[in-house]
């Protein structure tokens, strides 16, 4: 599903974010990327989502070589992903339901079908009662759950999460992780970057340790 081979990523200015990274994540796998801040976790996820391109080596996602992808093909690749960000990236001029509908509008679904799916996604993250609320009025945990709902509403094959529990206390963090676990059980591939080792310890998933851009075995 996701395959890195001898991937280097250098940013302009000479900073080397990733060094000689090679690994493969199979379809239906749930994997954690861990390591201290600045180890290259976010860069790795950006490569998968075609937000950045590798400086050398190849990144292949769903059979597509990210480095050689045309600009016009990128949106269609991204529709296979559900992206979850530490800072949520919600739109505060729209209500909760409209935030979740956005990916479906982008994919060009009919309104009626979009509504149905968006409500189902909100139901999964226990936000159904807050459809009409503005995201700004939600708590941190609720905002993160909304972000999760938006990521899964388009039934993605892969969910990429960058520090999804970064700003949450332990209870909320556990709640989010349980949701991820349940998505994984229905076949979704998950790649989760986190520095929270205690959270990872509870799951028997594969862990990729990064340190200064290198993969520790």
């Amino acid at each position: 599903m996701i395959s890195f081979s001898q991937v280097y990523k250098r940013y302009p200015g000479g900073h080397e974010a990733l060094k000689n990274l090679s690994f493969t994540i199979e379809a239906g796998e749930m994997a954690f990327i861990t390591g201290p801040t600045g180890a290259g976790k976010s860069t790795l996820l950006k490569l998968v989502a075609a937000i950045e391109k590798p400086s050398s080596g190849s990144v292949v996602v769903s059979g597509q070589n990210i480095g050689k992808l045309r600009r016009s093909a990128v949106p269609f690749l991204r529709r296979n992903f559900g992206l979850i960000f530490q800072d949520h990236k919600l739109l505060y001029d729209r209500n909760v339901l409209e935030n979740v509908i956005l990916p479906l509008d982008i994919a060009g679904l009919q309104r009626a079908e979009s509504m149905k799916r968006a409500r189902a996604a909100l139901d999964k993250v226990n936000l159904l009662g807050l459809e009409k609320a503005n995201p700004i009025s939600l708590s941190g945990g609720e905002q993160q759950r909304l972000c999760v709902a938006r990521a899964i509403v388009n039934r993605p094959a892969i969910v990429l999460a960058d520090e999804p529990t970064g700003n949450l206390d332990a209870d909320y963090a556990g709640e989010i992780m349980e949701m991820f676990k349940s998505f994984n059980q229905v076949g979704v591939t998950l790649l989760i970057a986190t520095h929270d080792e205690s959270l990872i310890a509870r799951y028997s998933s594969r862990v990729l340790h990064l340190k200064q851009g290198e993969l520790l075995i």
Partner: protein
Amino acid sequence: MNWLSQHRVALGLILGRFAHAPFSSLLAIIVFGVTLSLPLGLYTLIENVKLVAGNVRLEPQITVFLSPGANADNARQVESRLKEFNTIKQFRFIQRDQALQELLQSTGLVDVTAGLERNPLPDAFVIEPKSINPGGLENLRKDLMKLPKVDKVLLDTAWAERLNAMVRLGRDITLILAVLLGFALMVITSNTIRLQILSQREEIEISTLIGATDAFIRRPFLYHGVLQGLGGGLAAWLIVSLGLQLLNFGIVDLAKLYAAQFRLLPLGTNDILSLLLFSSLLGWLGAFLAVGRHLRRIEPRA
């Protein structure tokens, strides 16, 4: 994939944004309308002048005056020569005594002419030529000059040509004004859209991250431009119509003083449709420029 629903989404988004900031949207439309109303108003006035000019007989007349000493035989001679011209549609002879009678009747100068010893007017032919092109008329005039006992040939199309030339000049000025102001409007729209893009930066970024194509992101801004242009066109129409109404109060009164009936006519349906099409196109172009220049700069920084 359903393109119709995608367009509906974009349109809904833009109408929502308009409703969200009604004052600034209205202001932008009014600026557009006022600017457009300048060339549009000029155009309407010129169309009206053209209408008046069209009502006046534009067929040229040529008047041939015989020399004062010409007698009836000379006149008959000229008449028979005139019949041979195939460039003449018809002509009539005005005998000098008849001409004097007409003059007296039409001007009321009976007292003045009573003092004259003899009729000062010459015999004349009024000719209606077949062709109205200036070169042909000039040739005809030269040929007529060569006839015996002809003193003077007058071509009375000069004033009509002057009027036409003035109308043409007016149209050229309107066109230049329309092009210049159109360009300015495009720039204004482009700037409005640029601000829109900057204020929607976050939304654009997030949409790109979750798989929006360039077309999806462009669409609402292009709609914005078209709607602003369309609104501006409607505003210009409204402004010009109101202006015509106001002018007509004065013009109808003025015409009454001259015992004439005249009022400025409003724009025709075709003109209105062209105006709306043109203004929408301007808005679209402005939006297109802004979108092309600024969207590429907003790349996601997740």
